[in-house]
């Protein structure tokens, strides 16, 4: 992504914040609920400088990354099996479809009992929420693999493990990568939700304490910060994806 595209992407948020500032100064927006941007930004900088912002961010990202990684470690192999082995799919599809609609927030009371207030608590709820998109995207990516490719693996005399590792997995990777990226967004959303609702850690808890102590400007500072962190991570993931899947984009642009 070029600097020019980043600037273009910033145009709308900057305009939005400017409008917010103007409306808040004109008292169209109530200053009790909508702090001015010119107050929110210094509040954020103060939180950054005294270290709390980064400490809270580390807690949230720690949970989100752990949950996401667990979901990937479980979801990708499971998705490969579901996509490649018909009997396995018949065995598990009903279970998957029954578990998938369970709201991840419904797990909060359970994991609270198991883990207490901890990293593991947010991470396990995030893992549950991330598992489904990763699982479903992997399964469908595997089903979409060109059958000829798998046959080439067979014709060359490779065993099943080698065919999955060296043929099915790379062939499904462009699809899986999208699933991983979507899932990471979900991991952050769910982690912050759990922090707001129950777990006294991280950015979500920082927001709720700021709100309860009637410091709206701090609350907004955290909210904007969450958006910024999410955006930066997404850009980083898209870049990594492009680099790792160079062949995919090279082929797409050649056609």
């Amino acid at each position, binding site marked *: 992504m070029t600097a020019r595209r980043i600037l273009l992407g910033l145009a709308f948020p900057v305009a939005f914040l400017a409008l917010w500032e103007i409306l808040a100064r004109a008292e169209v927006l109530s200053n009790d609920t909508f702090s001015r941007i010119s107050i929110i930004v210094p509040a954020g900088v103060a939180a950054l400088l005294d270290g709390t912002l980064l400490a809270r961010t580390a807690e949230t990202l720690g949970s989100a990354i752990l949950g996401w990684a667990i979901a990937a470690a479980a979801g990708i192999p499971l998705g490969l099996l579901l996509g490649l082995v018909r009997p396995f799919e018949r065995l598990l599809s009903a279970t998957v479809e029954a578990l998938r609609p369970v709201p991840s927030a419904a797990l909060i009371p359970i994991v609270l009992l198991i883990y207490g207030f901890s990293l593991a608590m947010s991470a396990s709820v995030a893992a549950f929420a991330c598992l489904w998109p990763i699982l479903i995207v992997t399964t469908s990516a595997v089903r979409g693999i*060109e059958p*000829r*490719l798998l*046959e*080439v693996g*067979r*014709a*060359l*005399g*490779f065993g099943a493990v080698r065919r999955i590792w060296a*043929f099915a997995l*790379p*062939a499904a*990777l462009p699809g899986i990568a999208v699933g991983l990226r979507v899932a990471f967004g979900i991991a952050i959303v769910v982690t912050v939700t759990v922090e707001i609702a129950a777990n006294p850690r991280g950015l979500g808890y920082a927001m709720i304490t700021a709100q309860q102590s009637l410091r709206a400007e701090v609350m907004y500072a955290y909210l904007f910060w969450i958006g910024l962190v999410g955006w930066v991570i997404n850009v980083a993931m898209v870049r990594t994806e492009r680099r790792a*899947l160079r*062949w*995919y984009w*090279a*082929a797409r642009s*050649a*056609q």
Partner: protein
Amino acid sequence: MTLSPDAALGAAAAPRDRAPIFSFRDVSVRFGATPILDKIGFGVAPEEFVCLVGPSGCGKTTLLRVAAGLIRPQAGEAIFDGRAVERPTPELAIVFQDYSRALLPWRTVAGNVELALEARGAPRAGRAAEVERLLGIIGLSAHAAKFPLQLSGGMQQRVQIARALAQRPRLMLMDEPFGSLDAMTRQSLQDEIARLCKAERQTVVFVTHDLEEAIYLGDRVVALRANPGRVVEIIDIALPRPRDQLTTREHPQFLEYRHRLFHHLRDRL
């Protein structure tokens, strides 16, 4: 030399001086209740270039898949090196018609060729040099680092042929490899594969629906008829080598073969 039943079969249709390295022994295949192949039997001598020709739906591709060990026949057997083919082995290489799907798009040209070296367990140290040598003989040295889908169809098919050669197969099975290429590319690849296979003393079974291609390339042409697929004629091709796209195709003998085989290719029940 004692003649095995396969050699006798081969001898009846075409006098061969060496025992077959590969043969079909009464191979029958059904898909559900539909018979696809009916008691196919013929042998392939070492270094021989055998072309299988027949109308679409005569089961040529199925027969090749039986030969490769990708499917098992309901009756009869494909015999390779004295044993029934039960599963694929790197000793049998197969070149598919749909090159763009048969190449691994995430591996470079060199990486695709190297795959076959990995498959036959070639020592790691010599792989790069071997890949380079193969890309050299197939004319792809300049494209080693490209991805397959960045190449033209003809070049992609060359990659697949290089990969098959990298297996050092004792038998190369080719399934209409030039079927989806334009006429000019097809002719140059025909000449190249003919030259290469003779130079490398490669045994080949080559499936095509193009009668002239079969005669042009083959030492022997096996004609199949459809519904169900069965061998109707086996012809020795006594055209001199190296063959030439102009003079060979105008050779009176070429035309005679063409006449003899032509009616087999017309669709009839």
